[in-house]
């Protein structure tokens, strides 16, 4: 895959000059030896070149490949608009959902997209709390991915309510109908969980981006860019007093987002688990869903980051080690998911409950066996390749595994939704689920929305967290000061020198 010139002249040539210092491939430079810290930024970068590199993408000329990708995305997006428009003027009967399989593609797609978002929050919040500094290279666009995935997810239950123009009834607001939502229903929990998740993810993403938007503002040469980035960056000027509060706010938001991200997919799983349907009514669902979400989400981050680092020339910031680490997280969560699959079978057998046992025989052996075995192949077998250094050594091999997982995680939701519903208690109401062209079109179209938003983000916003990447470079640390992570004044600072206003 040839790298595309960002056509910004200056920084490209700078990097060319600095690159030869590196010996061998990135794999050779980043040894798998836990006794040594691996450099997180390769290629002799300093603050200047990192700024040039990332700001150059947002402020420079548009790469030609971007137009190609954008036109494909817009084509898919128009498919979404057409299918949604057709559904709105015709009714939800255009879907393949029927009385038996009342939750078809809309809920499958909803869970699929919400799940993808989880990797972004895991990277931005949980890995931050765990001091995994390698997250700095990937967190910005993983968070962007979260927000765009949640946008895609929100479409489906919104349409699935049937009369989308009344979707605001989901919200608790005083009204003349004397009608309130049912606060003990998991479906209302979902409204709050996904709503809060979308809002907090957006806040977190935006707040983290303010310093980088200020960098773009200060480097923009066109009046329009200066104005837009100027307004968006809110007048950020790199003040250390501001930075101190910024870091505290970042920590607080990470601490808030961590239980939030665990709660969101738990609540999504409650939609299933609190029902009586065999195959859904299980206590393992919350952790199983969360692990699955992180698993599928990391696959999507890999799917996006592997081409992006090539096309936008970001290989020094998103290094092979970043990709490898993400692949390892994907393997780890994949093992949790595999365990959940098997323990479900054990529980069904152990329950001695004939309906439950039937569902779990029906999955691998019934009419939807093809979906089940696709899921097993993609989610259980394919990720095992990550164990082998020969696979981890090849970025595009990891990409292929990630594509398997993307497919597999969609099929997981298909298996959960469709196989549980299509043959449950009453054989007289058994039915098969036949998706229509609207189902397929809307699902493909949601990728159009996702990639359109993502490409706009790549083009116009700082794709890598510039300031955060700088903090993990050696240049960020003064030799005589040990690295510490808190902002309490040290005990030897005299009281009269602990200056500031009464509130700081």
């Amino acid at each position, binding site marked *: 895959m040839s790298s595309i010139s960002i056509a910004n002249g200056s920084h490209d040539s700078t990097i060319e000059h600095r690159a030869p210092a590196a010996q061998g491939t990135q794999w050779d430079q980043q040894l798998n030896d836990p006794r040594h810290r691996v450099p997180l930024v390769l290629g002799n970068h300093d603050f*200047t070149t990192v700024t040039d590199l990332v700001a150059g993408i947002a402020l420079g000329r548009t790469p030609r490949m971007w137009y190609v990708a954008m036109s494909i995305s817009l084509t898919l997006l128009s498919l979404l608009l057409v299918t949604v428009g057709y559904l709105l003027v015709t009714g939800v009967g255009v879907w393949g959902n029927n009385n038996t399989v009342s939750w078809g593609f809309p809920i499958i797609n909803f869970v699929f997209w919400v799940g993808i978002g989880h990797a972004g929050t895991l990277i931005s919040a949980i890995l931050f709390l765990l001091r995994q500094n390698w997250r700095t290279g990937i967190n910005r666009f993983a968070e962007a991915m979260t927000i765009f995935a949640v946008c895609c997810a929100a479409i489906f239950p919104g349409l699935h309510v049937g009369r989308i123009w009344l979707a605001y009834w989901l919200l608790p607001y005083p009204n003349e109908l004397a009608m309130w939502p049912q*606060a003990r229903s998991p479906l209302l929990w979902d409204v709050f969980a996904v709503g809060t998740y979308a809002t907090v993810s957006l806040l977190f993403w935006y707040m983290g981006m303010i310093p980088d938007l200020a960098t773009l503002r200060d480097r923009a040469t066109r009046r329009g860019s200066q104005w837009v980035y100027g307004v968006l960056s809110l007048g950020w*000027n790199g003040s250390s007093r501001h930075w101190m509060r910024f870091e505290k706010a970042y920590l*607080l938001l990470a601490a808030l987002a961590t239980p939030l991200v665990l709660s969101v997919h738990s609540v999504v799983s409650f939609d299933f688990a609190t029902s009586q349907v065999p195959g859904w009514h299980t206590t393992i669902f919350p952790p199983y869903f969360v692990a699955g979400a992180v698993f599928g989400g990391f696959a999507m981050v890999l799917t996006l980051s592997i081409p992006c680092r090539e096309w936008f020339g970001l290989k020094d910031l998103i290094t092979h080690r970043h990709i490898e680490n993400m692949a390892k997280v994907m393997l780890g969560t994949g093992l949790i998911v595999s365990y959940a699959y098997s323990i479900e079978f054990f529980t069904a057998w152990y329950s001695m409950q004939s309906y439950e046992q039937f569902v779990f025989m029906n999955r691998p052996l019934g009419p939807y066996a093809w979906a089940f075995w696709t899921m097993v192949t993609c989610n259980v077998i394919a990720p095992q390749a990550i164990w082998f250094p020969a696979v981890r050594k090849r970025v595009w091999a990891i990409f292929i595994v990630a594509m398997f997982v993307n497919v597999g995680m969609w099929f997981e939701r298909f298996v959960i939704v469709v196989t549980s519903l299509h043959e449950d208690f009453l054989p007289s109401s058994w039915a098969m689920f036949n998706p229509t062209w609207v189902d397929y079109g809307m699902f493909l179209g949601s990728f159009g929305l996702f990639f359109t938003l993502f490409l706009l983000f790549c083009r116009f916003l700082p794709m890598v967290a510039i300031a955060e990447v700088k903090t993990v470079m050696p240049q960020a640390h003064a030799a005589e000061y040990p690295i510490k992570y808190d902002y309490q004044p040290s005990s030897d600072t005299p009281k009269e020198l602990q200056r500031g206003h009464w509130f700081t």
Partner: protein
Amino acid sequence: MTNSSNAITSVPSDVATIGMGEPYALIAEFETVQEVLKAAEQIRDAGYMSWDVHSPIPIHHINHAMGLRPTILPWITLVHGIAGGVFGLVLTWWMNATTVPGISPSVQGYEFLVSGKPIYSWQANIPIIFETTVLFAAIGTLLGLLGLNKLPMLYNPLARSRRFLRSTADRFMIVIEAEDPEFDLARTTSLLRAQHPTAIELVTE
């Protein structure tokens, strides 16, 4: 400035001046974290209050070097979180567990009996209470951050210095504002010069 020694005519020759008005601030540029930390300690010990270190990254230990106290932001988050929790609790209770006589039906809640279960059980409402807690706390954190930082600030006289714009990219700036009671153009300039910055600039209003 009332202090006559701060008149713009007394600017030392090696200090570039931006603009023609009254002095607003002195900017000293440094290239490394180490240098700016050392310099910040000197400015702190000289007793300045209206001054700042502008940097492209959060600098570790700058709070010690500048003598900054920890922020009250966590308390703002806590208060908002508690408010959010109370909001969620009252919301679920109001919607599904109570009728207050004499209130307009458009805001009136009602007892919602589901399968003979208790009208209000707080356990069943934990998800909503949790979500509103996080939502309020997160919004409060962002607003608290912006409020304490006095942002948005859509005009900054310092931005008229081309050099200062590098503080969001790759340079470290110490800025001492003219409104500081300790500020004296000649004395402050020589204090900054003693820290060996790569450049000193005077920005006027």
